[in-house]
């Protein structure tokens, strides 16, 4: 991969909104001890015992976007648009929501991962159709049911017209989004791309994890959006942008379970191949990786497969962090949360959620890993 530059970070998460707030929270051990699961605010959770989600607390999109035009947007869209604006502003592509030359609306694009779309919108309209009549569903809310809706709104709100690509690959989506952004930048289809992922808390999502017993197993759901400003190196240089990190490698792999009836599957082999492919893509050796920002979430079979693969490829001593211990299982946004963690680490922010190993004093390279629920795995390499 031709290296691309990360010049900005837009974050809406349970532990902080904005790059600096997120970084401060990452290194705060008190937050880790009191993981930010709290009483659910985004839906009525009274039917569930002790329901707790790492929601973005007191999320107030109007603070960032103004209060016009928000009424029909769903939570997913609002999280994503805020993260996109924060990322573009942090990168200096925009100031006071106006483009700063040489950045232009036609030169900036969006690539966004999301795993489950707006379940909030789908279930709301299904309820109206079932309990009342399909003729009464609100046409203004129908667009939210379409999976690329939030991503499309990011282009509308932020005037990012070079391209807009929505991707979905479960927990791996935000890392796969990096591969998409890479080819578009490498082909000159955009100067800069806001790339990352978003996922919103909803009762349907909570119910699914609850029914599958995934929450009792130790994981907790989160939500949020992270959008990184990723640029061609020549464009970042031309506009004198700050350089937070370089993206240098990507790898992904899929491995099917042998059992024909099995659906959910944690594959060590896929993770190993994804990491090896990322190293090869970056022309790096395993020994050059200083730290890993993993997708470890508390789901034992997946954590064991992921950590096993990391140790197999990089050695037992490598330092592995689990940002999901702070932000929760954020699914389509999960890889982007880990990317943000890795960017911080490369900038001297040591996350409190270290699973194993100890990081060198100066972190120069970071691997980010994500495991999907169906045998898929992806990895991205960053360096200072």
């Amino acid at each position, binding site marked *: 991969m031709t290296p691309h530059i990360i010049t900005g970070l837009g974050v809406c998460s349970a532990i902080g909104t904005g790059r600096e707030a997120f970084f401060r929270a990452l290194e705060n051990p008190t937050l880790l001890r009191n993981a930010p699961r709290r009483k659910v605010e985004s839906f009525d959770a009274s039917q569930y015992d002790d329901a707790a989600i790492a929601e973005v607390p007191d999320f107030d999109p109007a603070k960032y976007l103004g209060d016009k035009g928000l009424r029909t947007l769903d939570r997913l869209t609002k999280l994503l648009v805020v993260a996109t604006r924060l990322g573009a502003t942090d990168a200096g592509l925009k100031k006071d929501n106006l483009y700063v030359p040489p950045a232009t609306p036609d030169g900036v694009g969006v690539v966004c991962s999301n795993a489950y779309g707006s379940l909030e919108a789908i279930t709301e309209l299904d309820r109206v159709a079932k309990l009342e009549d399909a003729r009464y569903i609100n046409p203004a809310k129908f667009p939210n049911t*379409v999976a690329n*809706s939030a991503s499309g709104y990011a282009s509308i709100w932020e005037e990012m017209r070079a391209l807009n690509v929505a991707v979905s690959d479960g927990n791996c989506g935000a890392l796969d989004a990096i591969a998409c952004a890479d080819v578009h930048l490498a082909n000159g289809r955009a100067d800069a791309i806001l790339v990352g992922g978003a996922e919103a808390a909803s009762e349907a999502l909570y119910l699914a994890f609850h029914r599958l017993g995934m929450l009792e197993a130790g994981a907790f759901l989160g939500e949020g959006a992270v959008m990184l400003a990723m640029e061609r190196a020549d464009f970042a240089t031309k506009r004198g942008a700050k350089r937070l990190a370089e993206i240098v490698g990507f790898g992904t792999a899929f491995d099917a379970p042998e059992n024909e009836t099995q659906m959910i599957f944690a594959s060590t082999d896929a993770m190993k191949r994804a990491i090896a492919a990322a190293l090869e893509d970056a022309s790096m050796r395993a020994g050059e990786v200083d730290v890993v920002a993993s997708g470890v979430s508390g789901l034992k079979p997946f954590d064991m497969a992921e950590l096993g693969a990391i140790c197999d490829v990089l050695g037992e001593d490598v330092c592995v962090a689990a940002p999901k211990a702070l932000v929760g299982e954020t699914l389509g946004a999960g890889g982007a949360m880990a990317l943000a963690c890795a960017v911080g680490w490369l900038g001297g922010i040591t996350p409190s959620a270290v699973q194993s190993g100890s990081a060198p004093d100066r972190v120069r390279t970071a691997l980010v890993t994500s495991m999907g629920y169906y045998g*898929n795995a992806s990895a991205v390499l960053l360096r200072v």
Partner: protein
Amino acid sequence: MKRVFITGVGVVSSIGLGRRAFFDALARGQSGITPVESFDAAPLGREFAGEIKDFKVEDHLTAAEARRSGRCSAMSLAAMRMAVADAGIAPEKLRGPRTSVVLGTTMGEADVIANLDHAWIAGGHGAVRRTLLPKYGSTLLPIHLARAIGAQGMVLTMPAACAAGNYAIGFGVDLIRSGRADVVIAGAAEMLQQLQFSGFVRLGAVSPHRCQPFDLNRQGLIVGEGAGLLILESEAHAVKRNAAVQAEVGGYGLTCDGYHITRPHPEAAGSVGAMRRALEHSGIGPEMVDFVNAHGTGTRANDLAEAKVMSDVFGGRRVPISSMKSMIGHCMGAASALEAVACVMTLETGIYPPTIGYETPDPQCDVDVVANTARKGKADVVLNNSLAFGGYNAVACFARPGVLPDPAQVKRRAA
């Protein structure tokens, strides 16, 4: 930069299963638009759709696959098997990390989420079946396909609304050209479902009986369903196995209107840009284009915008254009993949499929519509337009092998 060839196609559509039945029906101008049977559409005042009546899951999937899959995945699996057979490649040759699967969709497994929601609404959260939950998620479409064929490379869903097929094909080309894959199984699928149907009716976008793209009296779109899958191969891979090459994918152009979530930009600046980029990425000028397979939804706004794209890009040259949606309806996420399959067949046969129901020319849509009956013509280079919800514009370029310049010589666009 490598050449990328199409060596196989597969189709599940309301006018036929498999490339031959599908294209023969298109060339005849056969309509697949019929009264909806899978749910009661009558209360909505719109009863017609391009619904597939003769697709039997058990004819195409193993029992285990059928248990794991929703209808959207099932149609994709069937279309993939047809495409692999059409490519004349032994399925075991596709096993391994050099094969990827990239699929577009709008709603994915819409029947699964509907069943989950309906159970929840009727019986509370205890009524939601645990076994059904892992079957939901658009993520699953390429997973099912990779699993069936043994592909171990990238598995990615591109939910790019009604342009999803072109997005998936385009990204498949990128994966091969950047060396990340030798073969990409690319395409898209969509199933007809009540919520989506109702939503389009409530938006006022659905025509009562038929879809008449570019006609003065057009009344909107007709919802459809289907799956179109293509086997994309690097030149080296295709040559090595002596594959029969059906077409070359040149390049593709993406832009985003950034204007309105459902309406196209009235000046069509984004879609004009997408078509120009597709030509540029393919290393050709507009004079090379013989035919355009239209997005052509039959809505007033879309067809006006698309006519503007044609005049802006081609100037005074009236390039023939036609919309298959007049026959199979708007298959949403699957639309541009099905249209891509038709583009491949047009290149092979020189047949431009017609736009049926075209009766009264719209002076504001001053384009050369292939009206009502198919037309024979030169078919070296064809474009596939998709101008989707969310302001997503994607135009892909397909050509007869040997017509396009070597991609290695095509200068990259300075953004």
